[in-house]
C-alpha cells in the first residue's frame, strides 16, 4: 500500500482557517492528508503541540498564520515565526528533518494558496517517507537527520 502521510495543520482562526474554508467553498481540491486543528491565533501554537504531534505519529506539521502585519491580534504571528525557528533547531536535535515543519502565511482570501501549500507540502512529506518517530526513538535511531546539533 502506498504511503499516505499524516499531516497536522494548526491554522489560525482569522486568516488561514478562513482561507481553508474559502478553498472549500471555491471547490478547490486539497489533499485529504491534512488534519486541521483550529487555534485563535498561530501564536497559540505551543511548540509542545508540534512535538506531541510528531510523537503521536504525524509525518508533518503545517502552521498557518496571517501575513506579517495582518495578524488579527497585532503580532501573534511574529511570535510564531520565532517559535518556528526554535522548533526547527529542536527537530534537528531529535533527528527529524526540518522540512517536516512548514510555516506559511495564508490570508483569508488566499484559498488557492492554501490548496497550493497543502498539495506541495503533502508531496514533500510523501517523498520524505514515514517518520515513525516514536518507534525510532525507542530504537535510538536518529538517522533521518544525521547532523545532531
Amino acid at each position: 500500500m502506498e504511503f499516505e502521510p499524516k499531516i497536522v495543520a494548526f491554522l489560525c482562526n482569522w486568516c488561514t482557517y478562513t482561507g481553508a474554508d474559502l478553498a472549500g467553498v471555491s471547490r478547490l481540491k486539497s489533499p485529504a492528508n491534512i488534519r486541521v486543528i483550529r487555534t485563535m491565533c498561530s501564536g497559540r501554537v505551543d511548540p509542545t503541540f508540534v512535538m506531541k504531534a510528531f510523537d503521536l505519529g504525524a509525518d508533518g506539521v503545517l502552521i498557518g498564520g496571517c501575513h506579517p502585519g495582518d495578524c488579527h491580534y497585532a503580532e501573534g504571528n511574529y511570535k510564531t515565526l520565532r517559535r518556528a525557528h526554535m522548533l526547527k533547531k529542536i527537530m534537528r536535535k531529535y533527528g527529524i528533518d526540518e522540512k517536516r515543519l512548514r510555516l506559511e502565511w495564508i490570508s483569508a482570501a488566499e484559498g488557492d494558496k492554501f490548496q497550493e501549500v497543502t498539495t506541495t507540502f503533502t508531496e514533500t512529506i510523501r517523498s520524505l517517507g514515514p517518520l515513525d518517530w516514536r518507534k525510532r526513538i525507542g530504537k535510538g535511531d536518529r538517522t533521518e537527520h544525521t547532523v545532531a546539533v
Partner: protein
Amino acid sequence: MVTVKIDGIEVQVQEDTPILKAAEKAGIWIPTMCHSELFEPYGVCRLCSVEVIRGKRTRIVTACNYPVREGLTIQTNSAKIQWIRKIIMELMLSRWPNVKVVSEMAAKLGVKESRFPSLERDEAEDACILCGRCVNVCREVVQAEILAFAHRGIKREVVLPFGDQSNKCIVCGACAHVCPTGHIKMVVEDYKGKKPEFTLGVKTPISVPTLQAVPRVPVIDTESCIYFETGGCQTCAKVCEPQAINYKMEDEIVEVEAGQVLLTTGYDLFDASKLAQYGYGRLDNVYSSLDFEAILNSTGPTGGKVVMKNGNEPRSVGILHCIGSRDVENHPYCSRVCCMYALKFAHLVHDRTDAAIYQFYIDMRAFGKGYEEFYSRLLDEGITMIRGKAAEVVERSHGINGDGSLLIRCEDTLIGKFREIPVDMVVLCNAIEPRHDIEAIRRIFSISKSPDGFFLERHPKLDPTSTMSDGIYIAGCAQGPKDIPDTVAQAGSAAARILSIIAKGEVDIDPIRAFIDEKYCAGCRMCNNLCPYSAIDFIDDKKISQINDVLCKGCGTCVAACPASAITGKGFSDAQIFAELEGLLAI
C-alpha cells in the same frame, strides 16, 4: 463730503474721489479704454480727459485719476475735450484699424476714419492696443508680476520676462480675461502639470461643487486659486458682502469615538489610458463612462447636450463594454453595472440626438429587476448590438466612406467576421476597481481583502456585510462592484446590524479568554511582554502575573509561552488540543 459741478450737475462725493467716479454718480459717461475697477487708475489711454475749471484757471486732466476737491467745476464734453478725444481715436485708428473695440469707440465719438499715416500699422483684428490692463491686473490683482511694458514710443510692447515663457506665470488667465481685444489667449494644454480635472470644461477656482451640494455653498480649490499661489487677487473676498470668504479654512481631522464603523469607501474608476489601444486621453471624443455621465448631466459642461469637442452633434456613437474588467490582464471580475449604464447611455443618446448607436459587448448581463425589459426596449429603439469586444479605436484615415472621425475595429462573433465601424464618439465602460488607498484603510481597521482587491466580508453568502473584526461593517462598492439597489440593500442591512447592537446597549464578546492559575504561576513574567494588548499585569505583593479579562482578546500567545503551563486558554486549553491531536492521529 465735497460738492462738485460736472457739466452743470452738482454731485456730492467723498473728497479725493476720482472725477470718473463722481461723473458716474452724476450719470455722465466719460469714455475710457484702459480703466478697470480691478486695479488703480493707470491713465494711459488719455481718453477720459476732462476740463477742470477752478476760478479762472482751466486744466486738462485725466478723469480716472484726478481727485475731486470742494467747488470744482468739470466740463466733460466741451469742444476742446471732443477735439482731444477725436485726435486720440484717430491716432489709435491709424495704428489699429481693424480692432473692434477701437473702431467701436471711434464710431461712438464720431470718428469715421483717420487722417494720419502710421509707421506701426497693425492690421490684425486682435492686435495689442497697449492699454496695459493685462500688465496692471497681473501686477496688482494676481500679484504674479509676469507681464510688463518694454521699450519706448512706437516700439512699446507688453512682454514676458526675457521675452520667453515664464515659469512664474500661474496660468490664471486674468490677463486674457481683461484683454479688450482678445490679443491674449488661453491655450488649454498641460502646463506645469496642470490640466482641468476633466478635459471637458474649465472649472473656476471658486464654485459650488455640485448643484445638489448640501450645504449649497461655494468652495475654493486651493490648487487653482490665485490667492493660494501668489497671495494676490482676493476678488471674491472684496465682492462678498457678508464677508463669508475664509482663506484660512482647512481640512480638519476630527476625532470621533465610535463603537462600530461602517466602511463605505466606494471605488475608483479604471484608468482607461492604461489600455492605449482605445485611445483614451490621446484621441479626441473618446470618453470614459464618468466623463460621458458629465456630458449627459444637465448641469455639466455641455448643459446635457451630446456634442463632440468641436460642438457638433455626433453622427454615430460607439459604446465599448468591459474596459479593464473581464480581462485577465487587468481585472478578471465583472464590474456588473456597466451593461446597464451602457444601455442607459444608448437610450439617452437616442433620445437627444439622431446618432446611430453601436454597443460592443462580450455578454449582456441584464440581471436585475426590470433590466431585461429595458434591454428589450433598447433593441426596439434600434440600437445596433455587436457581440464582440472592441479591439482598438483609431483615427479615421482619409478616403474611407461613411460617417465618423474614429474607427472601431472589432470581431463580430455572431457573424464570425472582423468589422470596422466608423463613429464620431466613443464611450468606454471602465471597470470598477478598489480604491487606490484600500490597503491603508484595510490596515487601519485590520480587515482583509478578497483576491479581487475589495474588502473581504465575513462570509460570502451568510454574512456579506460584516467583517472579521467585530464592529467593522462594509457596504457598497467597497465590498465589490454593485449597483445602487444592491448597495442600498447592503447598507441598510449593515445599519440594522449596527442599530441592533446600539439598541441592546451591550456588546456580546467571545468567552475565549486566557487565565492564570495562581497555584502554578512562578512569577517569571515571560508572558508580560508577549501580550499585544498589555492585558497581563504583574502583581508585586503576590509575585504572580494576572490577566485583565476585559483587555484580553484570547489569542493564546501567552498560553503557548508559559513555561509552567500556568496559563489556560478557554476553549483552546492544552488538554483540549492534545485530545484533538490524539483523535486526529489515532487513525
